């Protein structure tokens, strides 16, 4: 793992903790971004953490770009001593896989896809070595996920599955991004799942849709009254497959501002997880099932 720094124009510095994704890189990035915030460097205007990297926006009228770079490099040691443990929560998200809305959308953008002959799920199942879509969907929802980034648009979570690397699902992004994606689409790109918080452009493969709102600028949704964005980095998610009937019923509850997501407070400890992934996940699921 080697930290790489680059300017993004004259107002940003991009810091990549690692080229490849791992929770180790995530925790290093988290520690370093916290250190940058705490350092209160004059001229820093925004700090944005990502999966295995982060970006700092600064005002070059207040701090010279080279000085900004030196300030960041001086904080690099904080990544090495990163604490890889979090007090967090696990949240259940119902997903209607193979829904008609994402299917209609993916058919409209077939010319931008690697394999125009089938659906995104056909393609993802095949290139990941599954015989059927059902087996692929089972792999997608059987183990929980870790929110390793919030961004793209309005509170969209990037999710990394809590399984060993050889069990990780991986797909490329669309050859050319779509100009449309239904709101609350459950997508997939690289090793990440995501939930599209709003309707709009997107490059991830589309697998299904959740009825649960995750972004509400009006803050009327029952569980979003305190803040318009649901997710923060470090949250855990369990996807649960649902039918059309369950989808409709849950959507009605959400829209009537009556829905309460199932949430359990848990601790995530990377060392304990790495030592026994199945056992650790069982404990997470136990906490959620007790709610």
């Amino acid at each position, binding site marked *: 793992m080697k930290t790489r720094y680059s300017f993004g124009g004259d107002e940003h510095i991009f810091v990549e903790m690692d080229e490849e994704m791992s929770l180790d890189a995530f925790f290093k990035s988290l520690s370093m971004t916290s250190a940058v915030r705490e350092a209160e460097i004059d001229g820093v205007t925004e700090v944005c953490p990502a999966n295995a990297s982060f970006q700092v926006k600064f005002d070059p009228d207040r701090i010279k770009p*080279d000085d900004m770079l030196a300030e960041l490099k001086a904080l690099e040691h904080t990544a090495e001593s990163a604490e890889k443990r979090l007090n967090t929560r696990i949240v259940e998200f119902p997903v209607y896989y193979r829904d008609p809305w994402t299917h209609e959308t993916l058919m409209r953008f077939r010319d931008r896809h690697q394999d125009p002959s089938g659906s995104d799920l056909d393609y993802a199942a095949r290139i990941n070595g599954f015989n059927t879509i059902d087996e692929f969907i089972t792999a997608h929802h059987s183990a929980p996920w870790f929110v390793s980034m919030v961004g793209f648009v309005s509170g969209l979570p990037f999710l990394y599955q809590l399984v060993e690397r050889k069990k990780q699902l991986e*797909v490329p992004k669309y050859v050319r991004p779509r100009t449309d994606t239904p709101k609350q689409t459950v997508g997939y790109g*690289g090793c990440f799942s995501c939930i599209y918080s709003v309707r709009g452009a997107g*490059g991830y493969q589309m697998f299904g849709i959740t009825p649960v709102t995750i972004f509400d600028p009006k803050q009327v949704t029952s569980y979003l009254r305190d803040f318009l964005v649901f997710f923060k980095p470090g949250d855990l998610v369990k996807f649960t497959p649902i039918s059309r009937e369950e989808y409709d019923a849950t959507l009605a509850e959400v829209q009537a501002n009556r829905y309460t997501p199932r949430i359990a407070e848990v601790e995530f400890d990377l060392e304990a997880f790495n030592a026994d992934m199945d056992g650790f996940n069982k404990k997470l699921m136990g906490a959620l099932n007790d709610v």
Partner: protein
Amino acid sequence: MTFKVLNTGLLTTIQDLGRPGYFHLGIPISGAMDRLSLRAANLLVGNDEGAAALETVFMGPQLEFEKDAMVAVTGAELPPRVDGEEKPTWTAFKVKAGQVLSFDYLREGARAYIAISGGITTDVYLGSRSTYAIGALGGYEGRALAVGDMVPFGDNGKVKEGRSLEASLRRMPGNPAELRVLPGLYWRLITEEAGRNFFDDEWKVAPEADRMGVRFRGGRPMTFQEREQPFGAGSDPSNIVDGCYSYGSIQVPGGTEPIVLHRDAVSGGGYFTLGAVISADMDLIGQLQPHTPTRFVKVDMEQALAARKERKAQLARIEEALKHQ
């Protein structure tokens, strides 16, 4: 006091200087795409430079005023009319209660800024009145203006009609347009040849150009350095492990069509970026019409900072010019 929207034009939104501080949640800065023009329009009518005004693209709206106001139109050359009578751009003019402000057809540029004395006074959301339509927040009910909207504006009677900014104080892209780029970010993923071609080729602005970003086409497809894709990126050589995007950063999905992210940028994603348009040239992108021939010009940090300084000096010249009017 309000003005009523009789016709929206193509797309008219309320914008100020934006909403910094929420990019880590995927909520971009938004605000005027051509910030210098917004500032100039506000200063012409005696507003604070960052007051909320209208940004209108290609075709202007029709607005009926409920009370007297001073108005200035800057940015794209989109000649205003008051009850049919033509008024100059980059000049403060009066609109009386009951009169209708409309626009002639576009002569140059893409986005005009319509500042109204007192500024637009819709609710401030997360520190700004700028419209971020993708997130349905800010502006007028989180969306572009619609027919029948009654848009509130403030009051100031400080300035005289006829205050004006001469042509030397305006800034528009040339033809071909030139956008200065600082290479970096994931520049190392493309071959040397692809890097040379990017700066040598003439690109054209694609019709897919909006507040999120502007797409270009017409240059040669890019070739990538041979490498094993890092785990988590995806198998296409243009794929990376999703990271943050800079404003102005240039992504090239599949190595074919560069997209420059603008004020309503997505905050991150999984396509590689090869560098970013420098801050001084972001305003120019807001004025590009579809099909405009465009060249990307390679600069280093020193040149980027000099350009930034020059843009600041231009704003100071605008302020100075208006002091004496």
